[in-house]
């Protein structure tokens, strides 16, 4: 609550910091902001190409699913990577100017959110086209996307807060996070649909439960449900996957508040 009030009071600064991130990132590149969309599009294209090439005919992979997965995954990755440098990359600022520390990871997430919204502007027509091409159409539930985006952003903020603070205390964090992201990429349904792990789930049901507890699993599946009309997964594990980040939020905010007091000494 306190965080909300201070954020509101400093909204101008928050926006300024975020726009600094956005402007600074693409300032000297020819294609500029276009990279925001091009990078994940290329990634999606690469995954589709190689999955088709390596997976053979037996594999049922829809292009729409991969694009949705990669775009949502990119949003989280961007929050994690720019959140990681939120303090270590702004040491001078943290040491010398007083303002609520939480604004730095928040602005990183805000900048990533703006990027993600731009990506969606390209993504939605693309998905609509792909679905139309295979005889379907965009689900009306697409209108509910904002709710999911708010939840996804909140989850990313928790990640950014935890990682930005951890990185101040232990610079090992940046290496661990690199490893963690590569593992997370594969245990989340980014470049494959949920049905992909169906066989696995038959053999070890507990493993599927564990899989569903991963908030990114439910978030990415959620994006697919809303846009393509894929069935919503509502197992107890999936519901737990939705809810536990909300419960963890209090802990994250509390820990962050304690940790930020020593930032100026450690940077």
């Amino acid at each position, binding site marked *: 609550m306190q965080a909300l009030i201070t954020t509101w009071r400093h909204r101008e600064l928050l926006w300024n910091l975020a726009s600094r991130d956005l402007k600074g990132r693409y*300032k000297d590149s020819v294609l500029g902001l276009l990279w925001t969309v091009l990078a994940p599009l290329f990634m999606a294209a690469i995954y589709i190409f190689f999955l088709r090439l390596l997976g053979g005919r037996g594999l049922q992979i829809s292009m729409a699913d991969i694009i949705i997965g990669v775009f949502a995954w990119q949003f989280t990755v961007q929050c994690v990577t720019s959140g990681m440098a939120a303090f270590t990359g702004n040491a001078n600022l943290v040491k010398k100017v007083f303002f609520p520390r939480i604004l730095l990871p928040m602005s990183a997430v805000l900048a990533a959110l703006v990027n993600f919204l731009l990506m969606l502007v390209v993504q939605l027509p693309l998905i609509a086209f792909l679905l139309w091409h295979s005889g379907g159409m965009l689900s009306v539930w697409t209108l509910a996307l904002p709710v999911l985006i708010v939840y996804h952003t909140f989850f990313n903020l928790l990640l950014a807060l935890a990682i930005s603070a951890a990185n101040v205390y*232990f610079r090992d964090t940046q290496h661990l996070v690199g490893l963690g992201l590569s593992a997370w990429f594969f245990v989340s349904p980014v470049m494959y649909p949920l049905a992909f792990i169906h066989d696995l789930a038959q053999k070890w049901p507990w493993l599927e439960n564990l899989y569903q507890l991963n908030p990114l699993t439910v978030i990415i599946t959620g994006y697919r449900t809303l846009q393509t009309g894929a069935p919503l997964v509502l197992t107890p594990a999936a519901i737990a996957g939705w809810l536990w980040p909300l419960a963890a939020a209090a802990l994250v905010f509390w820990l962050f508040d304690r940790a930020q007091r020593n930032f100026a000494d450690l940077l």
Partner: protein
Amino acid sequence: MNAIEAQGLGKRYRKAGIGAPTLRDALKRCFRRGPMEDFWAVRNLSFAIEPGRTIGVIGPNGSGKSSLLGLIAGTITPTEGTVRAYGRISSLLELGAGFHPNLSGRENVFLNAAILGIQRADVLKRFDAIVEFAGLREFIDMPVKHYSSGMYVRLAFAVAVEMNPDVLLVDEVLAVGDTAFQNKCLNRILDFKRRGKTILLVSHALETVEQFCDEVLLINKGQLVRRGPPGEVIFEYLHTLLAHVGMLNVEEYGTHEVEIRKVRLLDRAGQESVRFTTGEPMYVDVHYHAQRRIENPVFGFSLKTGNGIYLFGSNTQLLNQRIAAIEGDGVMRLTINPLTLMAGRFLLSLAIHSWDHSVQYHRQEDCYPFLVQDDRGHHGIVQLQSAWEARPAP
């Protein structure tokens, strides 16, 4: 009500924690027994400052001045005790912090203003004045990474002084830019003073502190050593701390066959002082002790500005003054009359060496700092005898 209140303020740093922290260090810390090696940057500091006062904070390097300002500004969290500042605090500690090198000067003005808590509407209104003050009109749309360091700091300062705080913290920023810009900065700070703001000024420029401040805090090793009127506290600082603790960049060498035991700087009235006035005499009594009989010693002195510019040097030999011999205790008096130095901080060096310069008995380089004040408002380092007269046109 006070503008700033500190109560038992202390800040501890762990010596082991200096440098980039890693997981390994943290684990090591968990398993180690025994007390940590600690270092208190500031400890047991209690003071209160009434609103509208301009307070100077002086002390040797590493004495805790900047930590104190950080604690007041809120960037550093105290380990013990409390510090409170009432009203809006702004600090000129962060010149250019938060500038993004890829953004233009214009964009950085708005960004920096937001970081310092200045409303966007106010910046818009004052934008031209800011740019004018920084003197960067034709460069304002250039990315700041192409700025020279002087331009960078000037722009940062121009934004920072747009703040309208109740308490202003200034840390050594007056040392930026060329002389013309420094004067502009000082005027801005005087302006804050006139408007009744509380100002805390950390500086090594003691003349500035003496000129501006109503009161001075002397800090050493994290402790408040003394608080009082600028003249007295600066005297104590120069006299006891600087020269004797070796905080100056002093050098001392020689065979010590003759030793300089004590040096007293005396003003016109024969009072020991570190503050002298342009145009008045200055006396230096050098108390020496010669361990054996020394034939034809030479006594010399030299003067440098606080910035190390060599001004003048002379000795008894150059003055054709042959001292037959010295033995045991004695005093030599150096008289400089009139003192033709202008306001500023100066360093006196003393030396005793043999007639043929082959043996340095004792040389004290830059050991004796003193201040000169001038009440006639001339500029520069030295006073030259000058006069103007009207002449008939050719």
